[in-house]
């Protein structure tokens, strides 16, 4: 099968959905002429024109809010917030408008929009450009949350997100845009709420998503040498969360390690751990372990940045602890 980059997979997903449905539009800072800060909208402006691919001012709140207004009146906007760190400015619109409208209006409206944004550390660009704030989104009833780890998943999940009638926050890791992977040329979608077992195993379950999935995979490969067989699960969508796949795996392995780049306190991993405890306490042979980002503003200096986010060795250590 042909291989394309993560960012080209995103471009293709938007391209195909814009061709399929005239109501799909793209807006955000530098998405048109520049093609997106990380190139994830490259070529869309040339192909679909300025009516449907719109550069905006630096107005995050209005970008999110205008997407909502367009969505409840018949369009299917894809709004881009350049870095998730700037989502703070769009949070009021997302949390108080997008997330709540359908419920508060008695189920009489839908908000079919995607807010694409980029997150994570790894480029030494410090505390305002390196955060993993997905836990904030997962916390709020009414929002869906998607965080793909491969080009294949990125394309199929973005297409599903665009076709979904709910507000979806779609977070892309900045270190994944250049990653290549197999992506079929035919039209396909990956439904929201379906986890993927990226590696089968029998001794321990590792749940990891976005860039940390790859860290977990590297750790799992190394653990094989020590005869520890890890099953690696990528939830792919954190909301809806495919808890069944995780529980089925834990039933087999009896041990669970969860990896996330976000701050450890109130991390997505904390929620997953609690859900597994609530629904599968008896399946566990050892306490669940979290491997998360440090509770510190992500520092710029390469040595500090590295120390602030999980690495392969952290995952290996956690696995060995639960497997003792």
């Amino acid at each position, binding site marked *: 099968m042909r291989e394309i980059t993560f960012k080209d997979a995103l471009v293709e997903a938007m391209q195909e959905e814009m061709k399929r449905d005239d109501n799909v539009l793209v807006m955000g*800072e*530098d998405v048109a*002429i*520049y093609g997106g*800060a990380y190139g994830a909208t490259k070529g869309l402006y040339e192909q679909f024109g300025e009516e449907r691919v719109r*550069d*905006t*001012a*630096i*107005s*995050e*709140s*209005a970008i999110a809010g205008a997407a909502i207004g367009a969505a409840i009146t018949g369009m299917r906007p894809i709004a881009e917030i350049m870095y998730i*760190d*700037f989502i*703070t*400015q769009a949070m009021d619109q997302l949390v108080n408008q997008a997330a709540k409208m359908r419920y508060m209006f008695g189920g009489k409206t839908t908000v079919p929009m995607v807010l694409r944004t980029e997150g994570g550390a790894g*480029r*030494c*660009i*410090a*505390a*305002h*450009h390196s955060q993993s704030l997905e836990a904030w989104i997962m916390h709020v009833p009414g929002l869906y949350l998607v965080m793909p780890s491969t080009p294949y998943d990125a394309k199929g999940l973005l297409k599903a997100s665009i076709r979904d009638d709910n507000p979806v926050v779609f977070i892309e890791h900045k270190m994944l845009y250049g990653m290549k992977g197999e992506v079929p040329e035919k039209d396909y979608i990956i439904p929201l709420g379906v986890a993927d077992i990226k590696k089968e195993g029998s001794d321990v379950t590792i749940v990891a998503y976005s860039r940390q999935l790859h860290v977990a995979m590297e750790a799992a490969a190394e653990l094989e040498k020590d005869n520890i067989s890890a099953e690696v699960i990528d939830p792919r969508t954190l909301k809806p969360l495919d808890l069944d796949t995780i529980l089925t795996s834990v039933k087999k392995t009896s041990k669970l390690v969860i990896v996330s780049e976000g701050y450890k306190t109130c991390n997505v991993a904390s929620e997953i751990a609690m859900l597994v405890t609530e629904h599968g306490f008896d399946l566990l042979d050892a306490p669940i372990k979290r491997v998360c980002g*440090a*509770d*510190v*503003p992500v*520092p*710029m*200096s*390469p*040595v*500090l940045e590295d*120390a*602030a986010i999980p690495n392969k060795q952290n995952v290996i250590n956690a696995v060995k602890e639960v497997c003792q």
Partner: protein
Amino acid sequence: MKESKEELSGYLRRMMDIRLFEEKVMELLAKNIIKGASHLYAGEEAVAVGACSAIEEDDYITSTHRGHGHCLAKGGKLPEMMAELCGKATGYCKGRGGSMHIADVTKGNLGATGIVASNLPVAVGAALSAKMRKTNQVVLCFFGDGASNNGIFHESLNMAAVWRLPVVFVCENNLYGMSVAAKRCSAVQDMADKAKGYDIPSMICDGMDILDVKETIKKAVERAREGDGPTLVECKTYRYFGHSRSDPRAYRTKEEEKEWRNKCPIKQFSKKLIDNKILTEEEIAQIEKQSEEAVESAEKFAIESPYPDVKELMDDIYAPSPADLLNGGAIR
């Protein structure tokens, strides 16, 4: 010119320091000695140096993501800046912040920020503080044309106007916010017009002419000190490099770039000083050489400095609380 020869050559030196510093940063970015992002100030030197020469040492500034020029103009030091950009322990912020977070609070530089427009309300708060503490200090608040489209800009101007605070809003209009031309994303082209809605006076100056910037800001600073409230000063300027290192600059023409290169604030000012017989060409060359040497030695300092100790990763997140306010303190 009413300034002394010493003052005028000081301005020239500062502008050259900024230019040569930024060119060096560009070089070190290409070599990956500086990692991460750096937004360079080259082309806009007259704004920071002109504006900061119109205030006193104990006045405040707030900076932006394009903050190297502001820091140097407010009396910042080249070695500490360069070390910070390289993520070294000897940098202004112990290497934690890099280019977008430089602060030098001892010099009244309340800091850069990676979030566009986010320092406008901070400047308003600093001005409120100066007013309430009756210190007669003013705040110069730098921000870009792009920032003036953000909601916080409007909230900040309104609050400063209502409370008649001693803040000068300095808009560095370089025609673009990243790739998006002001023409394509701002309803008005003179950002100064945006002051009207808040009954704040505004002025426009030539951001490539240091003395024009200085005189204009000076008037605004005087108003602020008199207790007459905020002013918006728009400086028309241009950034010479791309927005960041990976920017192919497809959104602007080579002709436009050339036109603005011809207005180079350093060349213009040098010519003015020669024409007015204040400095000779040799003296100017001498100043440039001093700048070059200073930048070289800053580079050396930065490269030879150690990285921060990883053991310090979790330091300084919180200020130490007085013992009795913490769990386990005297008060239960």
